[in-house]
């Protein structure tokens, strides 16, 4: 008779941890993020000083900071900022104010949707930069042209998600409303409108990128005033530190913009329609 041998499955062993280990375990993501960002800048600075990368072409964090410190003392810089901010602010505002109502209209009225949809898709597929020369033909090279470009970018990034949002409505909500005899208007205000909000928020995310890009494209083309123009002119004279300072300004704006949308997203998170198959935990 053969003797049976057994494999033993034991229990989990609790290793003692000191305070640092416990803290690290909880905050690893943030710690790594910090390491990533700081590491990047440190490597950049070191590589630039050691000559591994061309300091002339790529500048270095220190140089950029020095250029920044200098720029903010110049009144010209603040003039540029004011111009860019106006373009950005007015264009975005106009876009939001027109895209949402129009999107809702296109989504809600069937016939408008049928005719309008392919054209919206077409113009959406169109690279906006291609429209710049056209807009210049209409509006010249001034601040109006630039604002229009910003507006177009924002408009198209918001209108399609809005249309989508109106069309995608929970059937169950509709059934409930109809069974209580709600008329179209009530359905619209109490179900469809709140339902659109999450889609608008996700459209906002695209909008942030598009409006910032709009400012830059328009300013590069027009070469009059603005932070974008500063970047272009600095590049022409090979002042890479100023170039990167300008670029990083836009990066900062972009990060702020996305964070803001993130806040909106979290605020309205509960309003999102539930997707089949999406299970939490």
């Amino acid at each position: 008779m053969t003797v049976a041998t057994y494999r033993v499955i034991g229990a989990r062993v609790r290793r003692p941890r000191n305070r640092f280990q416990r803290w690290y375990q909880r905050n690893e993501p943030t710690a790594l993020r910090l390491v990533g960002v700081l590491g990047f800048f440190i490597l950049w600075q070191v590589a630039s000083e050691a000559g591994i990368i061309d300091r002339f072409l790529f500048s270095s964090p220190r140089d950029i900071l020095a250029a920044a410190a200098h720029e903010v003392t110049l009144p010209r810089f603040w003039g540029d900022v004011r111009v860019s901010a106006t373009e950005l602010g007015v264009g975005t505002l106009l876009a939001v104010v027109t895209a949402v109502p129009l999107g809702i209209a296109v989504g809600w009225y069937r016939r408008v949707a049928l005719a309008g949809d392919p054209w919206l898709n077409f113009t959406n597929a169109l690279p906006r930069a291609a429209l710049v020369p056209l807009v210049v033909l209409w509006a010249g090279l001034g601040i109006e042209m630039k604002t229009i470009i910003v507006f177009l970018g924002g408009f198209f990034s918001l209108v399609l998600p809005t249309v989508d949002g109106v069309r995608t409505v929970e059937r169950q909500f509709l059934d409930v409303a109809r069974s209580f005899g709600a008329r179209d208007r009530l359905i619209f205000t109490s179900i469809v409108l709140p339902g659109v909000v999450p889609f608008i928020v996700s459209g906002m995310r695209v909008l942030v990128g598009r409006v910032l890009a709009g400012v830059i494209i328009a300013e590069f083309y027009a070469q009059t005033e603005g932070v974008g123009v500063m970047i272009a002119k600095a590049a022409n004279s090979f002042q890479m530190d100023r170039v990167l300072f300008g670029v990083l300004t836009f990066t900062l704006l972009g990060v702020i913009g996305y964070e803001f949308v993130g806040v909106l997203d979290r605020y309205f998170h509960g309003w999102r329609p539930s997707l089949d198959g999406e299970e939490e935990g």
Partner: protein
Amino acid sequence: MTEFALSARGVQMEYRERHSTERLLAIENIDLDVEEGSFVSLLGPSGCGKSTFLKIVNGLLLATAGEIKIRRTGQARENAMVFQDAALFPWYSVLENVAYGLVCAGVARREARRRAEPYIELVGLRGFGHKYPYQLSGGMQQRANLARALAVDPPILLMDEPFASLDAQTRELMQAELLRIWNAARKTVVFVTHQIDEAVYLSDRVVVMAARPGRIVADIPIDLRRPRQLDVKLTPEFAAYEQRIWSLIQQPRAAPDAATA
């Protein structure tokens, strides 16, 4: 004395919330011996830890206390799990899915497919090897699920409510099928369910569990003759077992080792 295929002592599963000192005992204390070739059911309401215990045996979870002895055989793996939802990979054909367990064990793809072939027929899916999961009904997907576990030829088969997502008629058919396959393959089966009739119909022993904390409250041998047909469910003996177990579930205050005849 029969050899035990599986022997658990003092198994405990404790969950601790990350930022608090709250402890949740999913499983308080489990002592269980499973004889080789027997069919044992773990029966209980949600939260009694039956699936958790199964996962510990399978190796997906690590217990916080206690130990489990599993009889070593020639095989690389002594146990294989049949999951509740078929969870077949949509990008593999039925045959490739059934062969997957072998691939995980290190068998080369072609060889794995060759070895998996007979199991497709065993579970009654002949001719469906080249179909894809979306072309199969729920019951058929579960058969494939079963075939995958059988293909690695494990001495112990762990089944986690495998028929829970099926409709009533299919479930009954699958129960009968399972017994047929078990008779042919002669494996040790640990079967988790919350359905009393299912447990009584299938098993040699029904281990009744209770929740909060998870523990065993009774261990009931089922003396119905084998091979069992589906109509045994209509007999008074069957009903008596069901009644007994039902009252045990309703009064879970019984001590862990109350194994009454």
